[in-house]
């Protein structure tokens, strides 16, 4: 009798834990179940990143003009935060060019740009999932005949539950103070 009780109790506790995590809000990006692979070849889904706010954007490694600026502007945001806030924010930068941006190419950007791998994830996914991710964060892109890409640039702030909480469109140079304010509000002090 006792073991059955214990089992039941354990079951209830597990259920309780699941309830504490709670159902995802309807507008959460974490409903999207595509598989990604990071700069170390480690596979993950967006849902596994639940619980921590992150800035999400798209880039590709062979892009010379705007893409380095995308990483610059993300770094600018990071530098405008307090150390405690920095600990609570992650970056997810997904390649528009999964054909050429393999794990090694992603890893070399992390090294060259001196991105802290504890907080920065450079990732790739299949082309269909990429098109869907771009739709979810409203970034438009088009592959050109010569293998380059046209794309809009935006930093998209996603809260711990996967909801879009803010975005910084275009790269006007320097820091987008309004956006940093939104990031700080989401992260707390």
């Amino acid at each position, binding site marked *: 009798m006792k073991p059955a009780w214990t089992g039941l109790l354990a079951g209830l506790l597990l259920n309780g834990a699941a309830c504490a995590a709670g159902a995802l809000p309807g507008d*959460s990006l974490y409903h999207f179940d595509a598989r990604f692979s990071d700069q170390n070849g480690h596979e993950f889904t967006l849902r596994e990143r639940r619980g921590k706010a992150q800035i999400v954007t798209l880039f590709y490694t062979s*892009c010379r*003009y705007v*893409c380095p600026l995308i990483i610059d502007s993300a770094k600018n945001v990071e530098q405008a935060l307090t150390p405690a806030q920095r600990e609570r924010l992650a970056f997810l930068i997904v390649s528009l060019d999964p054909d050429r941006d393999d794990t090694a190419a992603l890893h070399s950007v992390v090294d060259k740009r001196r991105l802290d791998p504890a907080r920065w994830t450079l990732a790739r996914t299949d082309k269909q999932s990429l098109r869907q991710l771009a739709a979810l964060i409203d970034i438009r892109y088009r592959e050109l005949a010569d293998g*380059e890409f*046209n794309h809009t640039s935006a930093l998209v702030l996603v809260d711990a539950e996967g909801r879009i909480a803010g975005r910084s469109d*275009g790269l006007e140079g320097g820091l987008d103070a309004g956006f940093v304010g939104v990031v700080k509000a989401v992260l707390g002090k």
Partner: protein
Amino acid sequence: MKRTAGLCALLAAAAAAPAVATEWAALPGATGFRTVLAYEDTQNGVRVAPFELLRHPVTNAEFLAFVRSNPQWRRGGVPAVFAESRYLQHWTADQEPGAAQSRQPVVQVSWFAAQAYCKALGARLPSWLEWEYAAAADSTRADARQDPAWRERQLTWYAQPSTTPLAPVASQPPDLHGVYDLHGLVWEWVDDAGALLISADNRDQGAADRLQFCGAGALSAADRENYAVLMRIALLSALKASDTTANLGFRCARNLPPGEKKP
């Protein structure tokens, strides 16, 4: 025993697929197709590979079969991130199209829902280029776009008030490929709607906007006379993938089966 189990699993999988009549038209494709999109890499025409296209837009009855076997795409169950609150709002209930007639094209569907439907058919949404190429045809020509009468006919539909009920699919005569309703019934999602680089944010070419683009700039139109097709692009580029409208439906496309090379 094992074999039987495998067979059962196979049958179960077959039963879960939407029970729709898939009527496909084969389109031969083209080399040097003139798209209205004047990107720098499309100036000399582009190649459209042969493909197959559903003869008519997906209907309410077909979409009902899909949501019956795919509960996650029912009106009440789909997360807002994939379909806004107006998703299938013209149906009376989750699985009740009500006054929406079975042969009318389904509307109020998001891009994500349209994609999921086509995927369940083992197909995909057509690309913009495939749609534009298919929609260039009339009953006798693969590309009738330079004919003023063709242009006039397309525009007449856009001038009609959108309050009249949608006609059943295939009420108009088919084009020379055997495809119905590319014009004159509903707007249609395309797979790369998110590649149409004009949006409310980027249309003007101010200094601040220029940096939104990596590589060469936004879209311009090579054929400004083709209003009917340009209006499609303007609409698609203004929509988010979770949006739905009362005049926006879709149809699916698929690659030709391997080894079947049509001219």
